[in-house]
């Protein structure tokens, strides 16, 4: 009895100390302008109390949701948090990109009081795809959302099959009653979650008008994960997203629980579609998020929201009022020009972004900023998997920036973009100035890798065009 009490006290003391230290770190790093304290508080606090993540997260009344996948994590998690907020909840939510265990813990530390009581009632956390096995057992999520799997930063994550395998193994540890919200159009995701404990809610697109004439070279899943037979695709939307079936083992796209029908894409301005969710309802939604890839993000967030009890009307209203985050196509006015910054970090995402920004024929000025820092992936081979050939004849000026500006210019040369249309400006500020000065009434689209996006945001902040990033 005495022993238990002592143990309890010690845990309490350590928990308290961890929280105080974590909060102090957050204040300090914010004051020192060390990037808003999005991961350091979690690292410091975890050193004091290693079990802090499960200890704090289990105090959330409605539990936690994780969102994992190559593309769309940040948008999906932010949108889901927005929907749940509109539905009367108080979500705790990690910052964009701070998606390792320390980032999630930092978000929780910010939310709790000094006694560890959370102000929020539900955790909505984007999780780095390779971190899922480390985070999932601690969070014991009610809902796990899997958006898609594409090649991305192979030098850091290893092979796509490895990630799918990690998810599968981690999924075995899901609590009973957990729900898996998964992209049914992505055979790699479906194979990773199929047969795991927990109910599967599959989402996808049902609109043959958006089918591509042929499967793209960015498709990762041409051969059945189980038996190696080539999948038969009745149609594909982009990459390997589509209606697939293995003729040998018979596994194909699952029936959809949440589907987008009658999809209307409005170029970079957004999209509208009918959200059809048998069992939950049917409603027409409009969103400022552009492109088919964002239709998937809206589907993922909506499906998770339905599972968590949001109504069709709450979802519709929240999707309509959702403003994209920095780097996710929000509209910015700078230097008299209209800018949109769209994070472009891997071939499948980049191709979709290019398709979206070039679709309205306004001949935008395009700024491409490529870095090869660890967070971007040190290997820029993937630039050769992006179809920059689409730019030829659709944009008059391309400015290239970042640590790999010269490599990007070389890529454009082989894509058939004339040398005189390309301006190499490795620095972000000269590059932005060059882009804005060439706009002449046309939109400017900025397509950066992750760390280049942060650099560009800093310049735009200095120009007074956007706020500090921890305010997003």
């Amino acid at each position, binding site marked *: 009895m005495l022993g238990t009490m002592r143990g309890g006290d010690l845990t309490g003391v350590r928990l308290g100390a961890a929280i105080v230290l974590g909060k102090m770190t957050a204040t300090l790093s914010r004051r020192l302008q060390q990037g808003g304290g999005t991961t350091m508080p979690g690292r410091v606090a975890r050193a004091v109390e290693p079990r802090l993540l499960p200890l704090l997260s289990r105090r959330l009344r409605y539990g936690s949701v994780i969102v994992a996948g190559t593309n769309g994590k940040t948008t999906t998690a932010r949108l889901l948090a927005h929907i749940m907020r509109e539905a009367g909840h108080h979500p705790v939510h990690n910052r964009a990109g701070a998606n390792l265990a320390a980032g999630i813990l930092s978000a929780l530390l910010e939310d709790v009081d000094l006694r560890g009581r959370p102000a929020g009632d539900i955790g909505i956390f984007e999780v780095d795809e390779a971190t899922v096995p480390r985070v999932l057992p601690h969070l014991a999520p009610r809902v796990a959302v899997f958006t898609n799997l594409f090649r991305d930063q192979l030098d850091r994550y290893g092979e796509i099959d490895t990630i799918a395998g990690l998810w599968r193994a981690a999924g075995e540890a899901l609590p009973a009653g957990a729900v898996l919200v998964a992209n049914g159009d992505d055979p790699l995701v479906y194979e990773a979650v199929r047969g795991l404990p927990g109910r599967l809610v599959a989402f996808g697109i049902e609109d043959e008008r958006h089918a591509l004439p042929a499967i793209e070279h960015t498709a990762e899943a041409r051969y059945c994960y189980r038996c190696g037979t080539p999948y038969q695709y009745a149609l594909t939307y982009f990459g390997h997203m589509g209606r697939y079936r293995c003729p040998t083992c018979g596994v194909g796209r699952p029936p959809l629980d949440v589907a987008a029908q009658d999809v209307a894409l409005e170029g970079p301005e957004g999209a509208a579609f009918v959200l059809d969710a048998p069992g939950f309802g049917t409603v027409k939604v409009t969103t400022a998020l552009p492109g088919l890839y964002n239709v998937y993000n809206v589907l993922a967030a909506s499906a998770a929201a339905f599972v968590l009890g949001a109504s069709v009307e709450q979802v519709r209203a929240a999707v309509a009022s959702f403003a994209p985050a920095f780097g996710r196509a929000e509209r910015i006015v700078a230097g008299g020009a209209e800018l949109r910054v769209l994070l472009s970090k891997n071939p499948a995402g980049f191709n979709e972004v290019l398709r979206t920004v070039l679709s309205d024929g306004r001949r935008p000025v395009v700024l491409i900023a490529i870095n090869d820092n660890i967070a971007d992936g040190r*290997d820029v*081979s993937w630039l050769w998997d992006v179809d920059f050939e689409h730019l030829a004849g659709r944009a008059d000026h391309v400015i290239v920036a970042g640590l790999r500006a010269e490599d990007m210019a070389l890529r454009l040369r082989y894509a058939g973009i004339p040398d005189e249309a390309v301006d190499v400006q490795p620095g972000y500020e000269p590059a932005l100035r060059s882009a804005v000065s060439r706009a002449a009434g046309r939109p400017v689209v900025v397509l950066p890798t992750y760390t280049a996006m942060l650099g560009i945001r800093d310049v735009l902040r200095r120009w007074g065009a956007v706020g500090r990033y921890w305010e997003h």
Partner: protein
Amino acid sequence: MGGGREVLGALSAPPALRICHLYPDLLNLYGDRGNIMVLVQRARWRGLPVTVTEVGLGEAVAPDAGDLFFIGGGEDRQQRIASDDLCRIKRAALEEAMRDGGVMLAVCGGYQLAGRYYRPAEGEDLQGLGLLDLWTEHPGPTTRRLIGNLVIEVEGMDDPLIGFENHGGRTHLGPGARPLGRVLTGFGNNGEDGWEGAVSRRVYGTYLHGPFLPKNPAFADRLIREALERRHPGVVLSPLPDAQAARARAVMLARLGQRAAG
């Protein structure tokens, strides 16, 4: 006598570059198609006709399907599928093509498959084509992969080759193959002996993965010239403006502390 045939060739039409791309949709892990794009463009910029024949799983390949055969990289699962297919229905034809003066560029996983065998971290050995006298073994799933920028010095070339490597397997050369180059920065074949890649006849294998030809135009032209020579001996390639490639090379060499030649 041989000269007469050549003049006739030059009079009739410019020599055509015939590329055969093996498993474009299976072994394509790191922008491998970039190498094909560079070969095609550099021929076109010179006014040479180009054909690219793609040969996939289950399809037979003719020894005359191309003069320059390319095989890229894949994950272990894709490599296993390719290994079976290569050995079952393509090996004899590729051997004949190489005996007959054909050129092959095998990159990363393709490089491993051009050797005798690849022993992956888990599972049975993958049989290779045996076009290069080498073997590759993965020391196990917990061993560090060899990842990073890779710069090598190649005998007979003024400038080093620059690229990126990412492989778990360690490759060792037998007496029948010589290394492509000496490692200046990075790991190369096995991270131990300081050698990178392999050459035998006109079969080139390298861990410089994905699109390494864009930044190494002299090597791209060497492959093009050797491929054309199979049917047009003595062919000469006109020079191309490669200032942009030179700038991209200079940036990376400066960053890695290597001096750019020329």
